[in-house]
């Protein structure tokens, strides 16, 4: 089965408008592999029929489910490791130097998927506390998808998920077994506030941040959306703030609002001189 050009164009337009994800024609196969199961689950006879319903009736629920099915949620605990080392060894010392030791830290995971990233950050802070550092932190974790946010809030992970990137000592300390799955302890869960936020829409009500994780999401956006999103993140970042991006992402050539930190892969510092163009 192949999707017609009309259907592809419709899906590509809706997805880009709603999430920023750019679907190029070579990704047409995704429509079959990812929308097929969704159509079946929702009782449609075919992907075409589901798309027709979405198009003709502008069924918001179906449209949101399509966007969700086409976005990549791949994530794991302590992904790439370096960002969490940077928090411990570079960011927090710099923040304490700028704001005073023990000053409250506000952190934002801007596309948190199923939660491994904010929980890894929370564990990083816990470990620093255990080592005697006066960490007082607030973590806000957001994503576009209600489905992943539900999983974040439940904090329930499969045996496979807890074995990707999570040291066994952390599993013992921060999780408890529930059936065949593992649940994040209440103490850790209470440290994170999960909310639905679309990065294409306003998010200034979240307030100002010292640390922003925006990893492996802008990579799917076009250049214009990337720039606008980064500059709006800069507007929510304190002058001494930091941004962490994914391994294949950079602000270079996109915006001057953040500048790469030498020798710290994926770490960018807010450019205090940068002002949002009027």
């Amino acid at each position: 089965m192949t999707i017609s050009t009309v259907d592809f164009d419709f899906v590509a337009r809706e997805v880009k408008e709603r999430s920023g994800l750019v679907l190029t024609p070579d990704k047409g196969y995704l429509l079959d592999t990812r929308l097929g199961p969704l159509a079946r689950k929702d009782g449609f006879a075919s992907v075409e029929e589901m798309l027709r319903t979405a198009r003709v009736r502008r069924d918001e629920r179906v449209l949101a489910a399509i966007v969700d099915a086409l976005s990549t949620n791949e994530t794991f605990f302590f992904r790439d490791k370096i960002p969490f080392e940077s928090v411990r060894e570079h960011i927090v010392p710099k923040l304490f130097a700028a704001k005073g030791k023990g000053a409250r830290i506000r952190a934002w995971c801007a596309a948190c998927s199923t939660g491994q990233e904010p929980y890894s950050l929370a564990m990083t802070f816990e470990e620093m506390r255990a080592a005697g550092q006066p960490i007082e932190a607030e973590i806000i974790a957001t994503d576009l998808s209600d489905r992943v946010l539900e999983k974040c809030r439940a904090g329930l992970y499969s045996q496979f998920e807890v074995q990707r990137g999570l040291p066994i000592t952390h599993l013992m300390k921060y999780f408890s077994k529930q059936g065949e799955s593992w649940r994040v302890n209440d103490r850790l869960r209470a440290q994170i506030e999960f909310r639905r936020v679309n990065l294409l829409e306003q998010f200034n009500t979240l307030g100002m941040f010292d640390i922003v994780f925006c990893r492996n999401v802008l990579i799917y956006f076009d250049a214009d959306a990337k720039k606008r999103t980064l500059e709006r993140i800069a507007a929510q970042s304190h002058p001494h703030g930091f941004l962490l991006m994914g391994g294949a992402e950079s602000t270079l050539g996109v915006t001057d609002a953040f500048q790469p930190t030498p020798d710290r892969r994926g770490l960018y510092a807010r450019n205090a001189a940068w002002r949002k163009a009027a």
Partner: protein
Amino acid sequence: MKQCLVVDDSRVIRKVARRILEELAFEIDEAADGQEALNRCKKSMPDAILLDWNMPVMNGIDFLRRLRNEPGGTIPIVVFCTTENDLEHISEAMLAGANEYVMKPFDGDIIQAKFMEVGLL
């Protein structure tokens, strides 16, 4: 090349583990139970040991306790790899001197992640 001793009473599991670890550039030796593994280690300590729990003759936890009391027995990095997947077993293994713990079923990604965790990769 780093050496890894794969200890499991299942030939199939040893074969799967061997394939994964050889791809990660380890030189592999195999043992089918704890006693056999201990004999190997007494001759020469490997850099790493992937260790099953339930085995005939001598199980993994008994092997580990004896290994850690051998001369040079603290050298190998021991990664448990077992179907035992509750906190009690994990704690017991770590107390006995394991460095990491894999809950079966495993795949290449998990082995690689865990071996990275303990600095073997």
